[in-house]
């Protein structure tokens, strides 16, 4: 059974949420897809939120995301320290991951990635900003 995660950050918080995820060793810019509270948005609509899809995460990562809601900073890889050498400060990290700046939902493998995105955005009244038609 896989664990799949849809993570959502507000537009105001997405930069710092991404810095938290980057500090965890997950690379830059994890949350990148645009969403908005406005129904039927055009491709150039201004995003109010951003989201990511991460299929097949570890139970440890899921638990760390749950910890966000409890104000728990995640553990960092060896040699990475909050607030040092370009890593976001612990204070800014805590503010970034606090609700409602960041939310997530997890799903079993019974749901397609598209269904997961739809359910997660629906729960927050959000709509995917599509790409330009090509």
């Amino acid at each position, binding site marked *: 059974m896989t664990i799949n995660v849809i993570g959502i950050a507000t537009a105001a918080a997405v930069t710092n949420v991404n810095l938290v995820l980057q500090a965890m060793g*997950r*690379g830059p810019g994890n949350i990148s*897809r645009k969403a908005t509270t406005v129904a039927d948005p055009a491709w150039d609509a201004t995003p109010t939120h951003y989201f*990511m*899809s*991460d*299929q*097949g995460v570890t139970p440890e990562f899921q638990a760390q995301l749950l910890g966000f809601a409890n104000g728990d900073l995640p553990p960092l890889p060896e040699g990475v320290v909050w607030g040092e050498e370009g890593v976001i400060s612990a204070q800014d990290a805590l503010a970034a991951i606090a609700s409602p700046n960041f939310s997530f939902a997890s799903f079993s493998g019974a749901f397609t*990635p598209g269904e997961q995105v739809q359910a997660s955005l629906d729960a927050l009244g959000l709509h995917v900003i*599509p790409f330009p038609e090509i």
Partner: protein
Amino acid sequence: MLIRGVVSSPVRGVVGSGFGGDTFSLDAFMASQSAGFWYNFLRDDTMFQKDVGPTPADGPNEVIGLALSQRLWGGQTRTGYLAGQPELVANGDFASGLDNWADAGGNGSAVVVGGVLQITEGTSREERRQVLTVVAGRTYRISATLGGSLPVLYLGSTTSGANLGNIQATGERFITATTTTLSIRLQTLNTLGSGLTATFDDISVREVSQVPATQSTTSFKPKFQTTGAAFDGTDDNLLTNYTAGSGANFMIAKVVVPASLAETQVIIGANAALDAGRVRLGITTAGRLRLSVEGVDLDGSTDLRGQTVVVGATTDPVSGQVRTFAGSSQQAASAAAAALTTTIPLRIGARNNDGAAANFFGGSIQHVLAGREFIDLARFNQIANALGA
């Protein structure tokens, strides 16, 4: 080593033989291309979880951060191919003492004992160094046997750099050269003046792939499955460093098409700013194969939704023709003197929109190939048959 889904063909690896009739070899055909790639997402020795390796992505749902092109492997395993590649490090086994390893400073000691380099830290950083000539853009496998106290092997694109990472324990790492220089610097991480000793042996650098496909952001990484790399249709993609040629080109993929698509999804593609030089092979909401190039958006006639199918496209600015294929048939053809972008590299699982990923593919990709030839239906069918269509 178990190799799943290695493509078999009647005369695999007969480079330079004819490609027609009963003797078609996809390995030989791909090797004959002046440039290109072939990612086989069904194998267990071409993919790694991080973009520098070395942990393989060969189990269900393991993320893919690096995929190596097997275009030039001639049907061999990665290990077999590497064994035949020239060794770029001189005296990497220290059989000739310190030959080829320049003294780059420090007042400790560097001695070879029993074919093993021992570096002992002084009060200034002791270092031995070798600078190799490599080809920018190509991927190399670095391996080393390290021991003792806190050894470190720095990799850099300049003679004194470390920008390509480091190795601190016995193992291997994959790096893509950014210049024609690759420096290997052997040091310890011990406290200056500690007098502690690290050991180094069997240092090796060999070219493993000319075109890597990488992803360094975890949530963007597709997942290994026995049915192919699974792309989530939201943000998963791999970035190659391959750009189309100014002449003829082809792109072919064996994919599992999603059962439904909310917007056009791109299997492989790139475009420069303002859609210039666009080249995109994707699936429309109606399940039609679509090739987008300058001058034409060419849609196929077959609904491919839910199918496992080999699809392809080919372009030739000289004859001014473009064609698409799916299954065993030509889907569409048109006149279009399409000049494809030669500056924006192709993404897999999305289009590379002048550097940003967009229009993500939400299915599985088993194989994806590219090369520089204008192909006809007969050639496409040979390739598709070799891919197990």
